[in-house]
C-alpha cells in the first residue's frame, strides 16, 4: 500500500518538473513535439531507475560504513555520468532499435538535475531499496507525463497570437505555469 502511495505521490503530487522544478531545461527544450517528448521521458525514466539501482548500494554499503556521506554529490554525479556513457555504448552495439529511439537523448541526461535530484532525494528521505526504486520510477513517469501533456499545450501556444514581448519563452513559461496550477489540484491527495 505504501509503495503505491510513494509511486502516485512522485507522479502527481511531487511532480519533478511542475512542483520541484527539476529538469526544466529538457521540459522546455524537448517538449516541442510529442514523439521527442515520449522519447525523452522514456530515457529519463530508464536512467532514473538504473541510477538508483547503482547509487543506492554504493551509498549504503560503501559511503555510509566509511563515514563518507558528504561525498554523495560527487559520487552520484560520477556514477550517473559513467552509467549514461555505458548505456549509450551498450545500446549502440547490442540493441540498435532501442538506441535509435533513445540514443539521442542519453547525453542530455548526464546534466539533468532531475536524475541527480532523485538519487539524493532517496537518500535524504531515508527510503529503503524498494521504496527508492519506486520513487525513482514515479519521478520518471511524472516527468514523462508532464512532458507529454506540455507538448500538447505547447503546440497550441505556438499557434496562438500572443503580444510581441511575450513571444517565445515567456509565453511558454506562462503556459507552464497554468499546467503547474492544474497539478496543484493533486496536492494533499495523500495527506
Amino acid at each position: 500500500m505504501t509503495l503505491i502511495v510513494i509511486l502516485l505521490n512522485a507522479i502527481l503530487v511531487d511532480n519533478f518538473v511542475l512542483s520541484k522544478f527539476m529538469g526544466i531545461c529538457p521540459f522546455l527544450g524537448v517538449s516541442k513535439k510529442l514523439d521527442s517528448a515520449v522519447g525523452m521521458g522514456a530515457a529519463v525514466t530508464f536512467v532514473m531507475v538504473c541510477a538508483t539501482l547503482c547509487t543506492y548500494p554504493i551509498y549504503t554499503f560503501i559511503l555510509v560504513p566509511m563515514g563518507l556521506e558528504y561525498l554523495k554529490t560527487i559520487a552520484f554525479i560520477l556514477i550517473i555520468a559513467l552509467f549514461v556513457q555505458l548505456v549509450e555504448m551498450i545500446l549502440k552495439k547490442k540493441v540498435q532499435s532501442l538506441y535509435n529511439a533513445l540514443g539521442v537523448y542519453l547525453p542530455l541526461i548526464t546534466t539533468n538535475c532531475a536524475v541527480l535530484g532523485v538519487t539524493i532525494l532517496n537518500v535524504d528521505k531515508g527510503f529503503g531499496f524498494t521504496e527508492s526504486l519506486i520513487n525513482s520510477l514515479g519521478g520518471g513517469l511524472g516527468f514523462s507525463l508532464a512532458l507529454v501533456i506540455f507538448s500538447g499545450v505547447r503546440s497550441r501556444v505556438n499557434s496562438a497570437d500572443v503580444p510581441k514581448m511575450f513571444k517565445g519563452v515567456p509565453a511558454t513559461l506562462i503556459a507552464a505555469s497554468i499546467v503547474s496550477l492544474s497539478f496543484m489540484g493533486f496536492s494533499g491527495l495523500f495527506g
Partner: protein
Amino acid sequence: MADNAAETKKSASAPEKEQVRKKNKKGVFGEFTKGIIKENPTLVTLLGMCPTLAVTVMASNGIGMGLATTFVLICSNLVISLLKNVIPKAVRLPCFIVIIASFVTLIEFLMKGYLPELYDSLGLYLSLITVNCIILGRAEAFASKNGVLASVLDALGMGLGFTLALFAMGSIREIIGTGKWFGIDLHLPVTMTLFIMSAGGFFTLGVIIALVNRIAGRSAPAEVGCAACPNAANCPSYNKTEGKKEAVSE
C-alpha cells in the same frame, strides 16, 4: 549589443590566442560587466532555470543561492582555466563535473556550519548546483579557452548577474505572495499566495523575461539557453533548428 556578444563568442572560440589576448587587453573589465546585464545568464541566455524557479520564494533565499553559485562558479572557472592544458579533450566534461562537485561539497559544508537556516531552506537545491548549466556552460565556453584573470572576472560577472536575477525573482514573489520583504511585513492590502507556489514561479519568470526583452528592445529568444548548453551538439531539439547549419558549414 547583440553584435558585441557575437564578437565575444567568436574571438573566444577562435584558435588564435593573439586575438583573445588582444581582446583581453581591450577590456578585462568587459568580461566582468557583460554577465551582469548584456549576457545575464538567467534573463538573456536563459540558463540555470531550475534554481531560478525553485528557491526564489524569498528574497533572502535568492541571494543565498546566487552567492553560493557565484562562489562555485568563481572557484571552478579558476581551477579549470589553470588546468585547461592538462585535461584531455575527450574526458573534459566528466573532469569539469568532478571539479564543480568538489566545490559544491565545500560550500555545503560552509553553509551548514555558518548559515544553518539558509542551508535548511535551500536543501536539495544546494547539491544541485553541481548540474547547474551556467557553471558547466561557462567552464566549457569560457574558462577552458581563456586565461585565469579573464575567467575569474567572467565568473564574477555571471555569478552576480545570476544573483541579481534571483534576488529580483525572490523579491517579487515574496512581496506579492506573502506581503513581506526579507521577513519585514509591508502591510500590503492584498497578497496572492499563488506567487510563492510553483505556478507563480513559472509565471513570474515569464513576465520578467518579457519585460527585460521589452526594455532591451529585442524579441524574446525562441529557445531556452540551448546555445550555451554543453550538450547542444547532441540535443535533438536544438539540432533541428541551428545544429544543422553548423554541421553543413563544418
